[in-house]
């Protein structure tokens, strides 16, 4: 282990969109560890590099930065870390400054800023292949001479694309020489950049023709917006269509595992805990992993291609009107799979107000966990009939529920903006990088990271809550002369009865109230809980829903059904989302505010729905 501690530390540093992370993936492969920097929610990526020489290095992928004058948390981490000020992080032994060879005007300026720090460094001229393809001719030897630091060409997306870098690395680390800043006092870095470009680079034109052509179409007010709508539609189709077979497989696997464990363990509390608590509870959450992965495959590929910043460009004006920003688009898109990765994705929003607003409204996007609940209630209360030209009423209601979430989010952020009478300026200044073909390796590594984060959460907080809820639902046991179902005697049953005092005005009966409790862990569990409450012995959620439908159709009024549907648009009861909000904002107050406003909205909207429905004869 000592050797691992002693391995020289290399930090990859560079502008956003320089291909730094692709180079990091090429250097370290799967030997990566993703965590957070101490005290902040900036992602820290470290990997191990085994050089062909046999030497080992610890490689750190620093957050992208335009300048050492930090404008965001990400940039501040980068600034402090390379200067060796960051608490708990040793100063890197070598800075590998990654620059996009097709975007030298911007990136060389940052190289000069870094060189002024006087740390040992090396410049990786990345995307050297793309530069050659565009006819950009860079005199590497001259650039190295002018900069006074080693310069190597790399192609991060190609196997062997870092060979020059690896060959130089050993020598540079073995004989570190701090660079004396060659710039005389007062020289403008922009002027120096211009001089370097004139001396070392020849290029036929400033932009790629393909970017010009694509931007003409994709940013067009009409074609651009329609393309975005089609892309979004395809993503949602894929999330539901492609993931379903795998989800069915996971559900069948969980059921089989539960049945097997049920026969292996002696009947009793332990059997119940493992089968009904742990396996059913965690299985109900893991089943959403395929949907999350399909959604993220699209998001990662679109992000790498350079399209997502274009989407942000098209939507910025609309979102700014509601107190959000174009940058909020990506996190909110992720929230349709699950609010937790969405809330994590807000890290890319630099402006604190925009970030907070995005975090607070992310839970209003209809996450995939609400689908089973919607499916149950729509199936039970909304007749399946054609409204107009092949459009089904049930599908229309589902669409309306999604839309209600989106419009509520815009309304909430608009109210927050007005409430604070915020007159401050919240900048956009978003780079629209060149279009690129996404590299499958980088998408796969990104997916692997997402899957790990999700599974860790399942193993941690969701596991703990599942066990707790099982205890509430199972104890104390029913007396021997019980006349009511066992659940009536449990803690959860008593809580459910007590809750009707609050929820009766919404038309909720005590069975619904009980189902809301386990719904705290994961919303979809509400369906299987209702089934349990109605004393059904269903094996899995799907079977529960089928048998449950006639029961609630006959047992509940239409007003109750609609009220519960509306309740789940706001559905404040997801503890994992609260935990994510607490972690990302570092504030209990913000978390309480989010939970409070969602509860208030859910209560008011359900109350209104119930009473309007009753007044119209749906009681």
């Amino acid at each position, binding site marked *: 282990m000592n050797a691992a501690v002693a391995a020289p530390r290399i930090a990859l540093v560079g502008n956003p969109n320089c291909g730094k992370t692709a180079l990091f993936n090429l250097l370290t492969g799967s030997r990566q560890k993703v965590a957070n920097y101490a005290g902040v929610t900036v992602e820290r990526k470290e990997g191990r590099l085994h050089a062909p020489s046999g030497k080992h290095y610890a490689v750190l992928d620093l957050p992208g930065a335009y300048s050492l*004058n930090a*404008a965001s948390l990400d940039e501040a981490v980068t600034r402090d870390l390379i200067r060796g000020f960051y608490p708990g992080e040793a100063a890197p032994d070598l800075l590998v400054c990654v620059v996009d060879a*097709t975007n030298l*005007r911007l990136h060389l300026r940052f190289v000069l800023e870094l060189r002024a720090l006087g740390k040992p460094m090396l410049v990786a001229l990345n995307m050297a292949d793309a530069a050659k393809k565009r006819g950009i001719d860079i005199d590497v030897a001259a650039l190295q001479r002018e900069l006074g630091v080693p310069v190597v060409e790399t192609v991060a997306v190609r196997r062997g694309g870092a060979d020059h870098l690896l060959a130089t690395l050993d020598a540079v680390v073995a004989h570190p020489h701090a660079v004396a800043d060659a710039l005389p006092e007062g020289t*403008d870095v922009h002027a120096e950049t211009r001089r370097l470009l004139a001396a070392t680079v020849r290029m036929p034109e400033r932009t790629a023709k393909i970017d010009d052509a694509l931007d003409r179409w994709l940013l067009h007010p009409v074609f651009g917006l329609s393309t975005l709508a089609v892309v979004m539609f395809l993503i949602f189709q894929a999330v539901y269509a492609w993931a379903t077979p795998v989800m069915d497989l996971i559900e069948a696997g969980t059921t089989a595992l539960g049945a097997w464990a049920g026969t292996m363990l002696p009947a009793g509390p332990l059997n119940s805990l493992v089968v009904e608590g742990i396996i059913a509870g965690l299985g109900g959450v893991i089943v959403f992993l395929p949907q999350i992965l399909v959604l993220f495959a699209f998001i990662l590929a679109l992000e790498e291609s350079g399209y997502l910043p274009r989407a942000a*460009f098209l939507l*910025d*004006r609309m979102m700014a009107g509601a107190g959000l920003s174009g940058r909020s688009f990506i996190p909110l898109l992720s929230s349709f799979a699950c609010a937790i990765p969405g809330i994590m994705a807000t890290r890319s929003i630099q402006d604190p107000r925009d970030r907070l607003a995005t975090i607070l409204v992310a839970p209003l996007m209809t996450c995939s966990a609400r689908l089973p609940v919607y499916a149950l209630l729509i199936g039970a209360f909304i007749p399946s009939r054609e409204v107009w030209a092949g459009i089904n009423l049930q599908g229309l209601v589902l669409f309306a529920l999604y839309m209600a979430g989106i419009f509520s989010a815009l309304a909430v952020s608009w109210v927050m903006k007005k409430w604070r009478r915020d007159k401050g300026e919240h900048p956009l200044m*978003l*780079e629209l990088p060149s279009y690129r073909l996404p590299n499958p390796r980088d998408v796969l590594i990104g997916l692997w990271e997402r899957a790990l984060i999700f599974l860790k959460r399942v193993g941690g907080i969701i596991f703990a809550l599942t066990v707790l809820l099982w205890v509430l639902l199972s104890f104390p046991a029913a007396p021997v002369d019980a006349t009511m179902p066992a659940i009536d005697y449990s803690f959860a049953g008593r809580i459910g009865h007590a809750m009707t005092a609050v929820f009766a005005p919404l038309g909720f009966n005590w069975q619904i109230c009980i189902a809301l409790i386990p719904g705290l862990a994961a919303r979809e569990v509400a369906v299987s809980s209702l089934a349990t409450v109605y004393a059904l012995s269903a094996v899995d959620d799907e079977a529960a829903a089928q048998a449950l439908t006639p029961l609630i159709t006959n047992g509940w009024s239409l007003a109750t059904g609609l009220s519960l549907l509306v309740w789940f648009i706001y559905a404040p009861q997801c503890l994992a989302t609260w935990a994510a909000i607490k972690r990302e904002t570092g504030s209990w107050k913000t978390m309480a505010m989010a939970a409070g406003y969602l509860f208030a909205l859910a209560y008011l909207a359900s109350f209104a729905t119930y009473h309007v429905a009753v007044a119209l004869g749906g009681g």
Partner: protein
Amino acid sequence: MTLTELARRTPAIVDAVEDRTPNDPIARRLRELGFVAGEEVVVVAAGPLGAEPLLVQVGFTRFALRRVEAARVRLRSNGAGA
């Protein structure tokens, strides 16, 4: 003339970025992104609503700037001036 008044796809030369407040962080970031005296800029496109934001090319890079941000960038008039 400022960047917001520039016609679409007409190249112009940056004169300076003006601070709106003392030590304006947005103006400083614009300079760091390459909006400095002598650089050529082009407004490539504008957003679908209210021509907001603007897509501005400076050097080899394209940035989406809101109009209030772009208004800080003062342009040289037809190659004359500083």
